[in-house]
């Protein structure tokens, strides 16, 4: 039997084509074997981690929540001492998961103990890791449990990718100083509306004083979207200096900054900002014109009724929609313009926009009744 197999093997091996095929099959088997081995090792590792986590939770979870309900006792310190006997990674993840949901005296105690027991130091080190996943997880924990001690590690994220930057920015909004935020905003680049949300969330956490400090350095930020967000936030907070900033912003070459000027003017009162919005209805960019119509609607300026009626004839759909919506918000004066345009305007698009808005107003009125 063995001899038969040997003859077959020698025949195959002596033929170049069969030899190549045999090598190929051996390589494939090796690759599949390696993958299966890797999966077995990974599964074993995950099972070991799950077991360790279960043991940790069984031993310490209940006691932690019990200690959490006593903010000013030594229970939390005792718990941290007991937790030292377990894998530091489990303790860090557990604390970050739980403390994300609460604030107050217990939270402050846990943050202090987290630093005292060296967990934060580990996070600071990992926040410089080359592995993006490790870095982001460490920053997430610092977002929940960070303190002013972690400022240098968070500021260092200015050189990192977008996600690390915004996590650091949101943490610094809580534990840092306004100059830290300025440092990060100077290098932040936003390319979409989705990327703006975390920055807006960070700015919304700031006090008026801190926002004022950042806004005073408005010209230092290169990204137009950052400048727009900041201008709008400053106008909503009625920060001093916004009025003076509106004119240069409205004349900026950056479309985002011009949109920001419209948003800001929509939150303000007064003639200068109204004139700026009316002028923006003639802007070459439809995005700016559309934002100007919405801002005028928010201000509910009767003086804007005629220019808004004119904007119903705009070539851009969103400008016509914005103008119709703004006229709808103006009350009887706006409704009069809408009715006139709907009935008499030769421009089909303008008449349709006006008619649709009149129908919407009617439905709103019926619902209110």
């Amino acid at each position, binding site marked *: 039997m063995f001899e038969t197999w040997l003859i077959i093997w020698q025949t195959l091996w002596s033929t170049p084509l069969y030899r190549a095929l045999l090598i190929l099959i051996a390589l494939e088997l090796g690759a599949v074997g390696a993958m299966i081995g890797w999966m077995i090792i990974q599964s074993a590792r995950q099972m070991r981690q799950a077991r360790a986590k279960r043991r940790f939770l069984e031993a310490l979870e209940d006691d932690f*929540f*019990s200690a*959490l*309900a*006593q*903010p000013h006792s030594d229970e939390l310190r005792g718990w941290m001492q007991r937790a030292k006997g377990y894998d530091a990674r489990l303790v860090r993840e557990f604390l970050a*998961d*739980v403390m*994300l*949901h*609460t*604030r*107050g*005296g*217990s*939270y402050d105690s846990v943050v202090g103990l987290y630093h005292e027991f060296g967990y934060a130091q580990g996070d600071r080190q990992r926040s410089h890791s080359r592995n993006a996943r490790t870095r982001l997880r460490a920053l997430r924990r610092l977002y929940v449990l960070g303190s002013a001690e972690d400022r240098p590690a968070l500021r260092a994220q200015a050189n990192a990718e977008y996600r690390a930057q915004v996590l650091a920015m949101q943490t610094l909004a809580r534990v840092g100083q306004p100059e830290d935020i300025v440092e990060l905003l100077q290098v932040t680049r936003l390319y979409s509306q989705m990327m703006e949300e975390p920055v807006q969330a960070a700015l919304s956490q700031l006090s008026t004083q801190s926002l004022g400090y950042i806004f005073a350095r408005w010209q230092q930020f290169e990204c137009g979207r950052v400048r727009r967000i900041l201008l709008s936030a400053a106008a909503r907070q009625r920060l001093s200096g916004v009025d003076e900033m509106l004119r240069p912003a409205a004349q900026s070459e950056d479309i985002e900054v011009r949109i920001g000027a419209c948003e800001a003017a929509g939150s303000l009162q007064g003639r200068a900002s109204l004139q700026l919005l009316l002028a923006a209805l003639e802007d070459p960019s439809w995005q700016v014109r559309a934002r100007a119509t919405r801002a005028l609607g928010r201000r509910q300026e009767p003086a804007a009724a005629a220019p808004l009626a004119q904007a119903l004839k705009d070539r851009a759909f969103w400008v016509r929609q914005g103008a119709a919506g703004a006229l709808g918000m103006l009350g009887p004066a706006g409704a009069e313009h809408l009715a006139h345009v709907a009935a008499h305007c030769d421009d089909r698009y303008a008449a349709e926009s006006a008619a649709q808005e009149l129908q919407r107003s009617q439905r709103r009125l019926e619902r209110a009744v």
Partner: protein
Amino acid sequence: MKPDSNMPSSAVAPALSSAVAPAFPERADRAPLAILSADGDAIVQRILRAVFERRGWFVCQVSDGREALDALQAERFDLVVLDLNLAYLNGFELLDALGKRPAAARPRAVVASAQTQPEPVLRAFQLGADDFVDKPLVPEILLARIERLFKRPGM
């Protein structure tokens, strides 16, 4: 007698009928509060339970609006602490259902939610919420609001 706090949330409502009913008589001034906590987040539930039980209050916990309604029909509670973002029956619908109950059988309602924009807060109050606390929860503030609600500062 106290509801079993380790009981799965879905099992809480039916179990209450037999286990908890005698513990919630007509409210006396110093009697512990009976609280229904409705929140889909297990960690928030653990925090609330720890905080309330430390005060000696009775806590029944459910994880969605339907279970909350079942628990409310089965038992009498002094207070409902609810999230707005509940499965099956959201917080607004639950508040609406609470509002339709006779005044004597209606528990107080405190909304604990991360939806802090004016519209949901206003709507919650319009539907009968007695108070609103932001998430992340600050237990001290939540307790102070509950104490004010029941006007029992020494509790």
